[in-house]
């Protein structure tokens, strides 16, 4: 009898438009969430599992309705005359709903990971245990839904519990409190080391068994149910503790590998080599405009785990373990750094030809913004207006760098002349012909204007920066 009831519940759930609708919504959310970034499969897997919680929520409510069905619509009287008891129906739900929920979550997660993998270029790696954690979460939700239906008479409990769990996860994105005991930890950074996904998967599976056994215990304390519950609990608690402990153990970052692309060396973490051509293409408008010998000035472009403020403390151009597809964010920061490095610009560029040329190079690669107001150059000032967007760095915070030249100061005149230079069809030839003069630290804008075929137009401040 249990077998046919399991099949009935499984077929019913597999045909549920609620579950497949939730999967479609979760897939759309996952694709929307990942499309703004170059795919780092480690983060994409986490994003996919996060979106799959929508499926988990739908499974929880569906399993709750299925397990509580025999108490509604006058069914108790009808079912009372049949040989099957309530425990058989509960058993059917706790066997069928987790399998169906896990299957639908697996389809959703696989579809998302497959889509991102095909669109590439992919960095990082798919953590199979992390992905299976999303599948286990849907199965766990089914057990929870069945247990709630058997232990509480109120239909409002599942949605309220879903809100509470969502709040607990959202308010605790790094798993600072409860860590591995949370359904999932939203954020991750390469600098935090590998996620304890294996331990967390064991915790989720064991907790799912605890909940399913808990649903059956409503029908009476039986040795098998009690042993299953206690055994699962004995696995879940240490697994959760192990996941919590591993998450805080810290790590040593892997050794970097170096590759050359268009004459520039990039040193990156091994899993991010696939992104080097993306960075190379972003820098092409800069590199193609400078003489061959000038490229030797560019230091190694090094990948770092972002830490707010650290970027301005290094002379090496920096790229990161997150990369937005919006060219005005990470790409603009990298282009500004390399433009500054290739022209030899450091610190203050006001009145200097180097700044004008560097801004011209920036303008070749993307939009050239107005100069920031003078107060924006004060380092680390609070709430300063800046001419560059706040650049998100995932779980590592965000960076706000004044101006477009790696924090080097410039003004309206430098931007104005750079824009005039962008309008000239012979700009590349003129800059290459006078490269050494233009990038000499002592060359002023006034001295550079005749070399570039520009006339005096904007008032230039030639006093040194404060």
């Amino acid at each position, binding site marked *: 009898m249990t077998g046919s009831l399991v099949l009935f519940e499984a077929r019913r759930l597999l045909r549920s438009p*609620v579950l497949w609708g939730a999967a479609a919504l979760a897939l759309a*959310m996952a694709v929307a969430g990942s499309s703004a970034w170059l795919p780092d499969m480690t983060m994409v897997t986490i994003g996919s599992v996060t979106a799959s919680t929508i499926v988990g929520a739908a499974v929880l409510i569906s399993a709750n*309705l299925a397990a509580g069905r025999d108490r509604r619509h006058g069914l108790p009287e009808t079912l009372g005359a049949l040989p099957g008891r309530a425990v058989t129906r509960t058993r059917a739900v706790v066997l069928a709903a987790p399998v169906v929920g896990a299957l639908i979550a697996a389809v959703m997660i696989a579809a998302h990971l497959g889509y991102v993998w095909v669109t590439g270029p992919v960095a990082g790696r798919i953590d199979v245990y992390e992905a299976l954690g999303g599948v286990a979460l849907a199965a766990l939700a089914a057990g929870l839904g069945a247990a709630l239906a058997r232990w509480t008479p109120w*239909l409002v409990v599942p949605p309220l519990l879903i*809100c509470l769990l969502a*709040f607990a996860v959202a308010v605790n994105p790094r798993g600072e409190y409860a860590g591995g005991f949370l359904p999932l930890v939203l954020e991750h950074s390469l600098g935090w080391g590998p996620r304890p996904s294996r331990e967390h998967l064991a915790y989720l599976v064991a907790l799912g068994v605890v909940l399913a056994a808990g649903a059956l215990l409503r029908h009476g304390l039986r040795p098998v149910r009690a042993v299953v519950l206690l055994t699962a609990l004995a696995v879940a608690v240490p697994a959760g503790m192990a996941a919590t402990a591993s998450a805080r153990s810290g790590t040593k970052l892997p050794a970097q590998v170096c590759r050359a692309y268009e004459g520039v060396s990039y040193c990156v973490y091994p899993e991010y080599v696939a992104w080097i051509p993306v960075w190379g293409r972003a820098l092409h408008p800069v590199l193609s405009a400078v003489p061959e010998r000038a490229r030797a000035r560019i230091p190694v472009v090094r990948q770092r785990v972002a830490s707010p403020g650290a970027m301005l403390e290094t002379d090496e151009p920096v790229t990161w373990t997150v990369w937005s597809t919006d060219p005005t964010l990470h790409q603009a920061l990298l282009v500004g750094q390399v433009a500054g490095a290739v022209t030899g610009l450091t610190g203050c560029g006001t009145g200097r030809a180097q700044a004008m040329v560097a801004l011209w190079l920036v303008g070749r690669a993307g939009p050239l913004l107005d100069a920031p107001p003078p107060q924006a150059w004060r380092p680390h000032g609070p709430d300063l207006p800046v001419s560059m967007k706040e650049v998100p760095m995932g779980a590592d915070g965000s960076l706000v760098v004044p101006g477009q030249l790696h924090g080097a100061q410039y003004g309206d005149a430098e931007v104005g002349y750079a824009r005039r230079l962008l309008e000239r069809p012979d700009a590349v030839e003129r800059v290459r012909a006078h490269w050494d003069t233009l990038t000499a630290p002592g060359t002023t804008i006034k001295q550079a204007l005749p070399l570039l075929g520009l006339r005096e137009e904007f008032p230039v401040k030639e006093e040194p920066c404060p």
Partner: protein
Amino acid sequence: MPVIALLRPLARAIDWLPVVVAAALALLLAVVVSPGADLEPGHGLLLLRMAGVLLGAAAAFALVDGMEASTGAVPVPRWVRQWARTLMAGAAVAVAWAATYTVVALRVPPGSPSLSGAAVEAALCVLAGLAGAAPAVRRNHARPAGLAGAAVLFVLYGATQMADAWPVPDTAEWDAVHAWWLAALPLPLLVLAAAHRDVR
């Protein structure tokens, strides 16, 4: 006034438990999150948003009329009864959200940006929960119809996440996005008006 006379029996007929549980949870969390310390404004905002979704999902259950088969024969039309239920549930969850907001506002550090703009988000969540349940309640008189409100809220939450419709205070998006939320308020009201019509 027949409508006034209707309020007391309707208040007794409504299943208030979901609203009471949701309100208690929202208030309890507002009190116990970060005990003994100021509440981070980000956590406060998250709490107010969660309270809006919780209360919207709970308010939807107030529309379920288990006696609909019998009340169809009473002289008061269905739309009056359903709107009375809507208003009573709406008023109750508005009070609960306002109480949660007061606790959050008292607990965030002085000088924190105002979170009052989240009220329009909560209003839309509550109306969306009610509007999600109203058509289901029209077709199905059993209590599970109330769950349709939560389902609509979860879909709304997912869809608005993709549209970056949950801004943070002190940004240019805060007012602009909330203007859209305000403009969207009539939509659930239209759904409610259509779903509350008389069946016959």
